[in-house]
Every structure is written in C-alpha cells, then in structure tokens.
C-alpha cells in the first residue's frame, strides 16, 4: 500500500532524510518512531505530497508522490498532533466544510453529521469545536480526515496530551479502521502506544535504524520494554556515527 524507495530530502547542505526505504502492507498499523528532529515529520510530509523529495520516491496506493502529489493527497486522510480544525465553528460545520472540499456526497455528509450529533449529544453539537473536551476534538479531527474514505490514514502524534482512557478509545478506533482495510501510518512519542502497532520503524539522524515488529525490536536490543529498546537503538546509532553531535543541533523540520 505504501512503498518508499530511497526517499531523500536535503535542505541546503543538510540532509534531513537519507535513503529511506520500506514497504507497508494494506491494513497494517505502522508506527513511525524517532526523537525530535530525527526526520520523522519531513518523511511524513514527503509521503503526503506536501514536500517535494530531493531524491527517491514513494508510492501510495500505487501513485507516485514525485509525479502526482495531488493524486496522493486524495488517497490520504491526515490528522495532526495539534487540534487543527476550525475551533470557532461547530463540529457539524467542520465536517461539512471538509466534506465539501473533498466533494463528498450530500447523503454522506448528512449521515456523518447525524452520527456526530448523537455522539456529542445536543449540548456538544451546538458548541464551538474548540470548547469540546480534547478526546472529542481528536475524534472529530479523525472523523474529518476520514470523510473522503481514504485508503491510507496518516496520524501525526494523534494522542499527544490525551489522557490514557482517551488514548485507549482512540486506539480502538484505529484498530477498527485497520480491520476495515485502511492502512494506518502513525507517529508517536508514547512507547506503550508503539506496542499496539503491527510493525514499527525507528528513525535517527535522518535514517531508518530499525524496522520490525515491536517484539522483534525489543529482542534485538535485549530490552524488556520498547522504551528501553528505543533508547538503546538510538544510542547505538549515535555511537556508530562517531559521537557526531551534528544531528542534535539541527533544527527540527
């Protein structure tokens, strides 16, 4: 479903992402891990067609981001770490707007708005979206990202700041989506969350340093928790780079 080949991004003399290659299967929940500035966001932006790669390519649902970024955008549903809907508009107005932008049918819009209203209740539906509890906001964001029924869903740190219960509910939604055949690409800081993924990729200094199931990654680094494995993986990689601190001073992109 996602095929990344030698994807590279340079900003001036700086290489933010270097020869990234991996394949994500249809229906897979794929975790994307890395410290701040490791190149995660840059990679995701390239895969979404927002940023032109300096080298390599990525095929999403068979479509090249290099040659047809607009086509890629239509096949992706994106939700970001920060609440990025129109806070002063009502939840329904948000849904209607994004549905219209993507040319979703009127019938689908109506049923989606109705579903939302039952979920939020009378009081919640009339309020401005910014006044909703954070968990609801995230679910509203997800609902808006899914309106055009994209085969691929990209979640950029979707649960930052959400309480454990809210996160749990959110992850149930993610599993439902993957069960329905959607491919989910998720970046996260929470290692307990990364455990929920089918496979994880760890980035450091613009390169992929590990790619496997959570259990296999833990085994490889002899760690009991994914947290430990992550720290060891990154430390080992920094050592192999010869203690070069260049990457730490790089602005996160």
């Amino acid at each position, binding site marked *: 479903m996602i095929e990344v080949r030698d994807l590279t991004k340079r900003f001036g003399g700086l290489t933010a992402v270097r020869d990234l290659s991996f394949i994500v299967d249809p229906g897979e929940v794929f975790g994307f891990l890395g410290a701040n500035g490791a190149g995660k966001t840059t990679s995701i932006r390239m895969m*979404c*067609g*927002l940023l*032109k790669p300096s080298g390599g390519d990525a095929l999403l649902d068979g479509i090249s981001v290099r040659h047809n970024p*607009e086509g890629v*955008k*239509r096949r*992706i549903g*994106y939700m*970001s770490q*920060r*609440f*990025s*809907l*129109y*806070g*002063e*508009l009502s939840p329904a*107005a948000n849904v*209607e*707007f*994004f549905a*219209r*932008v*993507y*040319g979703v049918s009127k019938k689908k819009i109506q049923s989606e708005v109705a579903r939302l209203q039952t979920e939020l209740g009378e009081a919640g539906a009339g309020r*401005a979206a910014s006044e909703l509890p954070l968990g609801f906001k995230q679910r509203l964001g997800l609902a*808006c990202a899914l309106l055009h029924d994209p085969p691929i869903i990209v979640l950029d740190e979707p649960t930052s700041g959400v309480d454990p219960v809210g996160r749990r509910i959110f992850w149930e939604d993610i599993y439902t989506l993957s069960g329905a055949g959607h491919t989910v690409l998720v970046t996260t800081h929470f290692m307990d969350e990364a455990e929920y993924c089918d496979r994880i990729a760890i980035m450091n200094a613009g390169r992929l340093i590990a790619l496997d199931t959570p259990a296999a990654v833990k085994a490889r680094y002899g760690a009991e928790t994914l947290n430990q494995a992550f720290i060891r993986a990154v430390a080992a990689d920094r050592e192999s780079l010869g203690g070069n601190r260049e990457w730490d001073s790089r602005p996160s992109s």
Partner: protein
Amino acid sequence: MGLKAIILKEFKHILRDYRTLIILFLLPLIMIVLFGYAMSLELSSVALVVDDRDDSSVSRELIRSFRGSAFFSLREVRLGNSLELFRRREADAVLTIPENFSRDLFRGETAHLDIDIDASDASRGLIVRQYINSVIRTYLVSVGNSDLPAIELVPAFLYNQERSGAFFFVPALTALIVIMVAALLTSLTITREKEQGTFELLRLSPVHSYEIILGKVLPYLLLALLIAGLIVLFGILLFQVPVRGSITALAVYLLIYCLTGLSFGILISTVAGSQQAAMLIALIATLLPTLFLSGFMFQLEAMPRPLQIISLFVPARYFLIILRGLMLKGNSVRELLVPGTALMTFSFIFLVLAIRRFRAYLES
C-alpha cells in the same frame, strides 16, 4: 466545489463572530461622526489684541468694525511686545495702529497698520489673516477710500457653495475608512489559518490556491460593501452631503474600491507570519498613504516629484476623484472611466500576486 465550500465556511466565520461584526460596523460610524463634528474648517473666535497708538476717531472707527464682526473677541492694551502675548496664548493676532495712522490717511500718504499673527499653527494663522483683511477692506470701503483696486473679484465656489467642511471630509473619510476596514478584514483570514494549523489540512486537500483566495475575498466583499454603504449613508444623512451623480455608479465604484482593499489585505495575509503582523501591516499600509499621498489632506501638485510618482500607486487617490466626482460634481460613469480602470487594475494585480505567492507557499 472547493470555492463554494470555502465561501460558505467564511460566512459562518463572519456570522459566528458577532462581536467583531458589531465593532466592524460601529467603528466606521463613530469615526465619521467624530470627524464630522470635530473637523470644522472655520474659526469661531479669534483673539485679537489692539494697541491703538493713534487714538483718533478714525482708529476707533476701525476698532469698532472688528467689534462688529462675530469672529473676533477684542481686547485693547497699551503694550509694546506682542511676542509676550503670543507666548501666554492670550492673542491670535496683535493689531498695532501707529501714531500717525489717521494723519497719513487724510494726507493721502500710505498709511500703515502693523499686524502680528501667531503662525505656530500655520493654517490657523492663514485664516486669521484672511479674516482681518476682510474686515479692513470693508472698513476702507465704508470710509470711501480711493485706494481700493478698480477690479473686485466675486468668486463663486462651485460644487460647494457653502464651502462646507463636510463636503470635503465625507468623501475623504469614506476613502480612508473603506480601504482600512477592507484590508483588515482579509489580512487576518489566511494568517489565522496558519496560526490555527488548519492551513495544513487545506494544503493536504485538493483545493486550488485560487479557490482559497477567491473564497476568502468574495464573502468579505459583501461585508465591506455593506459597511461602505453605511458610511456613505451616514455622510448624506448627518452632514447633508449630496450625491449629484448616479447612485448605481456610486455603488459600483464602492464595490470596486472594496475589492481593491480586500485584494490588498489578502496579499498581506500571504506575506505576514502572524495575525498581529498582518493587522499592523494592513493598518499602516492603508492609513499612511491614504492620509498623505491621496490628496486627502495635502495637495498632490504641491509635492516633490518622487512623492507624486508614489501617489500614483495609492488606490485612494483614484477613489477620491471618483467619490468627489459622483457626490459633488455629478460626473457620469464615462467621465470616471480612468480612475475606475486604475482601481480595477490594482485589484487584479493584488489578486494575481496573492494567488502566486500563495501557490509558492503551498508548495514550499
């Protein structure tokens, strides 16, 4: 489909934020009322101090003519130093009638009157001089002095017989307020989306940049036109400013001028990083040129050449010609084709620049 979606969304933004909406309508009205009553071009009371050293029937007669005028409040003193009076702000002008005034007058020699005028406020000083001159001339006519010029000018002030200040400031203020409000309205729209993070979602969506730009300009065009119409209506009702040209033409030109302001605002919005920056740029970039380089306050013809050239790029300059033409002169649409075309060209250029800048931003 993207265009319609964005237009609908912007309308919802406008209606939902009713507090801003109220301010948007009230502020221009408050401004025009304040300016209207504060900006009077006439002086009501000129403090004139007279030092009558001649002390003759002639000089006393002259002083009486000043007393008779409603514009002067008179005080007689015996004092040599007018500067001291000016410094203490006790006089706008000091009239000194020299000792030999009546003698010289009767002998047919040139008689002198000394007038010192406080010109620290130059325009006030100028008006004071005109008032004094006119009183002295009336006096000379009344005593049958033959030194009067053989030809007297009888000016007719066309288009503004009453020389009402309102005729001057209502078009000028309309030009200023409309472009300020219009530019402000749109300057915030894109920067707000950048700050909210909603912009990322727009970038990921299949909307075109021209759809976003037009979708944000069109709803505000209606709003700006309403506000502009209200300002003009207030000018007419409160200050009896006429509309001697066609009302339809006035509406059409107002619409074009609103579009110019909105396009300028959206261009700012594509450049500015934050809402505060956008607001500041929009205010300064419309207020200053409109005040100083549009013919609002200062005559363009009297300016140095470089400033005159810069004024060619100030939209309000053209709109003032149109508005004064339609309100006071009764110009036809055809007579205003040149300034009208200039405004449309501005709108077009601003919009194209905004879309191009926006597209570059989308792809960065």
